[in-house]
């Protein structure tokens, strides 16, 4: 698979259709994001496979957003998995990226990774290499809803109490791109206080994720306190789907119901 990707990147760079390609590199024993440009050595290109396939993930779309803000007229390629492609659709919709200036290089995730991520669509629509694995059933939210109301409260209060307010969830999130963040607004969140205000701090982020979260799970991976953030955002996404028939990142040009005024769109 990696040879196909290398070939594709080489083609794109040498025929000048892109200025650079955002992908991953093996460097000093680690996997890191890297911008490949014409003439760069592709030998150390990496798909994020270290101990197992795709276990080193990185929000490449976030790098791409930063790049395209700096170089709005250039075209960039980007390595995408299923979740990243959903992210691209979201970022197009939210006017953070121009689909005319992005060339996605889609790779499918192996079954092991799909299972580990509990991913419902571990392949991109536009697949360049790999073979689509089966989507995994999502059971987390239904399981969490089985508990009684006091049980749910003590579970989530316990989780939120662990928060060290490192903002890791926001910083890693490929769909968090606001220049001003509500969670840094001192009128809403007091600086330097721990524990964070329960449940406001985490629910503010959950609400902002409602029409954005693409269920990539990077927040869960990044959280040093192991707060099941993704489960929380999965619930907001389910509410969006139940109320408006909308799921972030599934259709390329679908507008979010939260950005429309007027009666609810037909389901």
């Amino acid at each position, binding site marked *: 698979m990696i040879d196909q990707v290398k070939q594709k990147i080489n083609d794109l760079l040498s025929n000048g259709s892109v200025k650079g390609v955002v992908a991953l590199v093996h460097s000093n024993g680690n996997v890191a994001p890297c911008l490949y440009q014409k003439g760069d050595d592709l030998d150390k290109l990496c798909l994020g496979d270290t101990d197992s396939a795709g276990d080193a993930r990185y929000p490449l779309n976030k790098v791409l957003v930063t790049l395209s803000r700096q170089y709005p007229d250039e075209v960039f390629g980007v390595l995408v998995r299923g979740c990243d492609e959903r992210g691209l659709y979201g970022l197009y919709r939210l006017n953070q990226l121009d689909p005319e200036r992005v060339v996605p290089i889609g790779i499918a995730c192996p079954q092991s990774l799909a299972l580990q991520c509990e991913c419902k669509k571990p392949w991109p629509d536009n697949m360049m290499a790999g073979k689509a694995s089966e989507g995994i059933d999502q059971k987390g939210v239904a399981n969490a809803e089985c508990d009684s109301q*006091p049980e749910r409260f003590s579970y989530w*209060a316990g989780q939120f109490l662990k928060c060290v307010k490192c903002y890791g969830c926001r910083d890693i999130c490929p769909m968090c791109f606001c220049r001003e963040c509500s969670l840094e607004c001192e009128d809403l969140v007091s600086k330097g206080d721990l524990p964070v205000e329960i449940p406001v701090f985490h629910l503010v982020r959950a609400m902002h994720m409602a029409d954005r979260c693409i269920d990539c799970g990077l927040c869960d991976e990044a959280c040093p306190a192991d707060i099941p953030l993704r489960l929380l955002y999965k619930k907001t996404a389910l509410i969006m789907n139940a109320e408006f028939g909308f799921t972030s990142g599934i259709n390329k040009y679908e507008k979010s119901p939260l950005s429309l005024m007027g009666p609810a769109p037909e389901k």
Partner: protein
Amino acid sequence: MLDFCGIEKERLRARWVSSAEAPEFVEEINDFVKVLKKLGPSPLRKEQVEAVA
């Protein structure tokens, strides 16, 4: 979302009341207060959160 996190959803209410509809506003608030009294003190008080978590 509040319900998902185990907080009684009756504790949050959003109603649209025009400034010309004072009686509706009063009725709404009285009703809300009644509901809240029945629910009792909020589980979100700091000491309470630390006790159950």
